């Protein structure tokens, strides 16, 4: 079909065959271009759909076929893709904002004002950036909750859970480093608190008299700020972390996270997923009909089984178009949500940062307000101790829960939904009781002014709450003879505690971190 390379010695004047072939090729360029793009032709057959995925540099991270259970909305609610979509939004808007933002204290605030007022779409981009960041944090937390409650962290997916925890930390780090950049009162004082929380190990080393020799708190704070106070060194470090180091780390971890999904055999599914997802749609047809138990070699390098071996009647669908419509749908939904939020609510910008005028109350970003509530009693426990315990606990879950009952089902495992609901009650009652007690009566130092700080470090609302939740969890393990039951109870309690502490820190704490039922009661000045 291509124009041949045969020569013709026809005389000049009138279109020669070579000329005709040339013109024909010229006219066919658009069609040929499209065809060259899709090496296997339009993705209308299963074969071409498969090669559409694995033949594409960007798409071949996906599996070629996905189980229909995975595609159900109720399986994942699209939360992972929502988090990724929010990240992409922050990435794009962030790059656009980098055209104008200048990371030096003398000009940072003014550059943000310029973005608001004279950059075309500037205010809109900043709003999207801020809201997409909030959506990302929320989506990441909800995604973690989804994975937990469907027990999707179980073997062989333990390591992916660990990667996910790392992603959570990096996400919070991205949000935190970005918080300082506007260099306004909100930013400056929130990061003052954050830096002092980083220094909180001093509470322990001081109590043990070690600080002169061993001061990890001071070191942490100094590395974060580059100086003793928050100035241009801190700003440039936070900027570097925010635009380069953490996004690259996130991208790398996201890559590993998705690759692990492939290698772990796709999303976690219940053992009877095939039956529950039902008979296949007429549009699909079986794969592996000829020899479902045969082993397949992958490029003859490794002999072994692929994860897809042993599948019975076909329950998978080609990723193109089924998975891609799902991903695109979630992406556009995330875009829509962020746009709505951006149009109705502007990203805040208070007065220029003034080291001489502390904000009162000075509040950390909302996802840290639960911790700040605990920090009010013990800086070390609230700032480092409890978070480390929580992260350690979360990391250990997949290694401690090696049961198989209920994988892939919501609230799967012994106890089920009723256990979770009861744990909600336990979690809420415990945290509300502790908070009410501490707010009404104060805590230890109000009654015993001379008690050493180490006592308060060990006995404070955060540690007491952790102990209560842990005891409850151990009780559940015994009661149900199942680690999963204990884990379900503990995680549920942790979510309730986090929620209530965050709400208290956001709405009920005013100047001097005193308790007020409403901001209208805050004292003037």
């Amino acid at each position, binding site marked *: 079909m291509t124009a041949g390379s045969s020569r013709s010695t026809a005389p000049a004047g009138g279109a020669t065959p070579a000329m005709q072939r040339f013109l024909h090729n010229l006219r066919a360029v658009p069609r040929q271009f499209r065809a060259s793009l899709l090496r296997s032709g339009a993705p209308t057959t299963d074969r071409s759909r498969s090669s559409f995925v694995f033949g594409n540099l960007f798409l071949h991270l996906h599996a070629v076929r996905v189980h229909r259970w995975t595609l159900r909305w109720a399986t994942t609610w699209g939360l992972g893709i929502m988090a990724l979509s929010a990240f992409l939004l922050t990435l794009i808007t962030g790059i656009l904002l980098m055209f104008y933002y200048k990371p030096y204290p003398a000009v940072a605030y003014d550059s943000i004002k310029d973005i608001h007022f004279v950059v075309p779409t500037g205010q809109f981009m900043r709003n999207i950036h801020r809201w997409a960041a909030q959506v990302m944090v929320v989506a990441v937390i909800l995604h973690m909750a989804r994975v937990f409650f469907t027990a999707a962290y179980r073997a062989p997916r333990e390591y992916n859970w660990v990667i996910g925890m790392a992603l959570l930390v990096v996400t919070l780090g991205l949000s935190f480093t970005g918080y300082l950049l506007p260099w306004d009162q909100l930013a400056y004082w929130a990061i003052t608190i954050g830096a002092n929380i980083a220094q909180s190990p001093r509470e322990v080393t001081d109590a043990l008299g070690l600080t002169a020799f061993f001061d990890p708190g001071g070191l942490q704070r100094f590395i974060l700020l580059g100086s003793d106070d928050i100035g241009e060194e801190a700003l440039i470090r936070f900027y570097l972390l925010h635009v380069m180091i953490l996004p690259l780390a996130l991208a790398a971890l996201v890559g590993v996270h998705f690759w692990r999904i492939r290698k772990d055999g796709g999303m976690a599914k219940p053992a009877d997923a095939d039956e529950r997802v039902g008979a296949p749609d007429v549009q699909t047809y079986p*794969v592996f009909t000829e020899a479902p138990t045969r082993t397949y070699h992958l490029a003859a390098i490794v002999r072994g089984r692929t994860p897809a071996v042993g599948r019975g009647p076909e329950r998978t669908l080609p990723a193109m178009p089924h998975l891609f419509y799902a991903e*695109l749908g979630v992406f556009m939904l995330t875009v829509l949500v962020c746009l709505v939020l951006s149009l109705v609510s502007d990203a805040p910008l208070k007065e220029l940062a003034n080291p001489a005028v502390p904000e009162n109350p000075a509040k950390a970003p909302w996802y840290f307000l639960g911790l700040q509530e605990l920090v009010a009693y013990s800086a070390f426990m609230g700032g480092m101790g409890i978070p480390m315990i929580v992260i350690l606990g979360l990391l250990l879950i997949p290694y401690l829960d090696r049961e198989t009952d209920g994988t892939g089902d919501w609230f799967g495992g012994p106890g089920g939904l009723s256990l979770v609901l009861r744990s909600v009650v336990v979690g809420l009652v415990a945290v509300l009781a502790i908070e009410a007690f501490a707010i009404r009566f104060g805590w230890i130092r109000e009654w015993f002014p001379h008690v050493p700080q180490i006592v308060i470090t060990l006995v404070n609302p955060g540690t007491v709450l952790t102990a209560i939740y842990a005891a409850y969890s151990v009780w559940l393990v015994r009661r149900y003879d199942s680690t999963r039951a204990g884990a379900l109870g503990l995680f549920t309690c942790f979510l309730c505690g986090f929620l209530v502490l965050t709400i208290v820190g956001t709405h009920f704490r005013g100047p001097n971190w005193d308790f007020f039922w409403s901001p209208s009661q805050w004292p003037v000045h």
Partner: protein
Amino acid sequence: MTTTPSGPAGAARSRLEPEPMPRRDFLGLAALWSAAVALGFALIGSLRLPRAAVVPAPSRKFRITLPETLTAGEPFLPPGRSVAVFRDAAGVYAISRVCTHLGCLVKNEASGFQCPCHGSRFALDGSVTKGPAPKALPWVAVTRVAAGTYMVDESTTVPSGTKEKA
């Protein structure tokens, strides 16, 4: 080797056999095209972002007050600007000092202007007398605001020889 499994007609097909032409997927096409249009609109909208509505540079229009003692042919160089303003019997005029070759600022001499970068020379009225400069120094718009005060607009060129009445 292909086998066509038995069953309801057209129900299941082998992977090696292409599907029949599907009905037009209006919903899918509409969905994909609307997504593409939305994202395309977003892309085009954000293309304007790199160009701010105002830039941190002084305005191209500025006011000057000519010193009384300025003689004909003697240039007045407003500080921080790249024009030379003259006043003679016919009026006030301003000539841009940006060399038309590659943009260096010309220095003024008794007989005109000289560019230090590549040696272009210009007469007192801006015309090229020597050098790689391809065209004359442009005259820029001058408007009288009050006695002795004029508004110079560097962004508007006027024909050579245009003078504003003093």
